[in-house]
């Protein structure tokens, strides 16, 4: 029987449900069902994309606010009398979100697909490029229709997910080929090495929203921790306040998909924002999200 209350179509809960299904499938009779797990991975991908959009929106809003305040302060210093009004006007008619991500930023960063010229405003402009593309979605109120509209748009990264360029992922995945019985381990790409270094430096700005999310996700992860082999590894990850480096994962847990997601997911969120800062906004959002595709597909690597 289905509950009268429709379950909340919430990206995060879908992600945790999906991970649980993947985990349970490993112990089901008859072996892992490739078809079912492939379908679950699609739900996971869809939920992840919605989640990432939300994350970026949140980060963008935070940065917009900071930017507005910075610029306003700068302008005030220059000409406190003339420009205060302009600033207030602009911040006034922001596009509907709770925080003051004003269209002043929109003026600075044209809502188009061009790389914005204001690269001297570091570090937040980097994130603005992808956000400009999704300006409309970002500004919608976070009610259920938001999810639907997010899902309704064609996913911009669907092509990239399966492109051969996709070597830039931060995880190690172990694949057992059922035909040849060969075990291969896909090593970390360059992104891993680089982002380690860069993240140590630029863990500001996006850190606070990411941290908040980390705690939320930790709640979900702890639910899954009924299974004994998760516990020691996972807890260590979440006590680490900086990003999580998957290289520390015990190799015996590599095929443990939930540990990959549990540590890599929110870690990747903060990592991504910082990486874009490091690369001066020229980092294509498509490539960024595409790099996250590889660990999603680890599920179906049977």
């Amino acid at each position: 029987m289905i509950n009268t209350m429709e379950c909340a179509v919430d990206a995060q809960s879908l992600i945790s449900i999906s991970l649980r299904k993947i985990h349970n499938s490993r112990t089901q009779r008859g072996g892992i069902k490739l078809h079912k797990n492939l379908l679950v991975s699609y739900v996971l991908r869809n939920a992840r994309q919605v989640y990432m959009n939300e994350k970026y929106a949140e980060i963008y809003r935070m940065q917009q606010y900071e930017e507005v305040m910075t610029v306003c302060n700068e302008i005030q210093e220059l000409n406190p009398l003339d420009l205060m009004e302009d600033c207030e006007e602009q911040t006034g008619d922001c596009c509907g979100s709770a925080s003051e991500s004003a269209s002043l930023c929109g003026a600075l960063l044209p809502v188009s697909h061009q790389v914005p010229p204001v690269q001297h405003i570091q570090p937040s402009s980097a994130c603005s490029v992808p956000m400009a593309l999704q300006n409309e979605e970002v500004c919608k109120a976070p009610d259920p229709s938001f999810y639907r509209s997010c899902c309704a748009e064609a996913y911009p990264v669907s092509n990239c997910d399966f492109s051969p360029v996709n070597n830039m992922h931060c995880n190690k995945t172990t694949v057992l080929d059922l035909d040849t019985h060969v075990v291969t381990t896909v090593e970390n790409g360059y992104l891993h090495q680089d982002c380690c270094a860069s993240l140590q430096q630029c863990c500001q700005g996006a850190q606070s929203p990411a941290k908040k999310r980390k705690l939320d996700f930790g709640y979900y992860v702890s639910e899954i921790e009924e299974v004994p082999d998760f516990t020691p590894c996972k807890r260590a990850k979440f006590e680490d306040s900086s990003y999580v480096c998957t290289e520390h994962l015990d190799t015996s847990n590599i095929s443990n998909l939930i540990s990959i997601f549990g540590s890599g997911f929110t870690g990747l969120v903060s990592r991504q924002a910082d990486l874009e800062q490091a690369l001066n906004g020229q980092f294509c959002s498509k490539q960024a999200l595409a790099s996250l595709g590889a660990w999603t597909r680890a599920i179906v690597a049977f």
Partner: protein
Amino acid sequence: MMAGVGGGNDFQWCFSQVKGATDEDVAEADIISTVEFNYSGELLATGDKGGRVVIFQREQESKNRPLSRGEYNVYSTFQSHEPEFDYLKSLEIEEKINKIRWLPQQNAAHFLLSTNDKTIKLWKISERDKRAEGYNLKDEDGRLRDPFRITSLRVPVLMPMDLMVEASPRRIFANAHTYHINSISVNSDYETYLSADDLRINLWHLEITDRSFNIVDIKPANMEELTEVITAAECHPHQCNVFVYSSSKGTIRLCDMRAGALCDRHSKFFEEPEDPSSRSFFSEIISSISDVKFSHSGRYMMTRDYLSVKVWDLNMENRPVETYQVHEYLRSKLCSLYENDCIFDKFECCWNGSDSAIMTGSYNNFFRMFDRNTRRDITLEASRENSKPRAMLKPRKVCTGGKRKKDEISVDSLDFNKKILHTAWHPKENVIAVAATNNLYIFQDKLN
């Protein structure tokens, strides 16, 4: 034309029989996993999760009761598959019978193919109603006689005995599938058949068990790039060089074996463009095709996805010619159905003998029939409450919103544990078999 009296193609379905346990507690092994009539409709086979096959045979019509068609009674029961363990991969292989397909009858015996996830078996079902008696070298109870004691010879005589139906495995087609077999289909040449798993399709000769031809292989070089799997496959009913296979992405590929040994490149590609406004988290799941069936004519094929049935004209690839909504009211419930795994249920579909009607199952032990000519549809229920002999089935209706009328059932009251995944339609008459968990219902059209 299966016309009924009283207008057009209206069927009046009546309860005929129900087979199976009446207990509330359903044993997992008793859950029916496949249902199939043979070519004449005289035999009806079911397979279950416990690896057993039960064959029912229709009684000859009785002159005393012309309105009542012959009943189906148990003809043979045998254990087709046993659970196995693959030690190399540490995998248990389920004994569940995924599909049964009959071979056309060529002599007194009947042959069928049954398959689980890994192994296909050819079974011979034969009758024995005579026994030879009067052997020279052995006694009636089988003990050997001392040859030196024999003083005279006699010719053994065939004596009648109680009918015994024997099932024996004649061929075992094993070790050809790495992934789970989802389909088998006998070719119209009656010599070959195909078997399909998630990533590959193999072509077999019925006489040869130690090798098969791989004709489709969609396994990517890097499994991380896997985007779709094969969900069903079927041979064309008349053209022995043509077969189709459906995918988890909602597409169907038609292949011609004359084009090459490996049919990775399709001859036709059937896909309906997705409606972007209906996109959701679960779009990929509900577009996955769970069954594909050619019409008897061979001109059309039918596909079943989670919410609808589509009829395709083989001459038109860009969209189906007909689409029937099975239970559209579930579209708003997809999240819950995902949570309880119902969204992964694989419903089958079937044609009637004349291709004028199609049938498929739903939840709450409901099943749906669509008349292709009149475009009328009907929802019926397989339940023990409606099991009086020859009782007419009342149409059921699901209330999708607003005020619930009398006799309607609301979406939230549907029992999602009672699902009808497997149905079969007699090849010539209006007799249908509907599998409801561990029970098999047989319904007949009153007017025929």
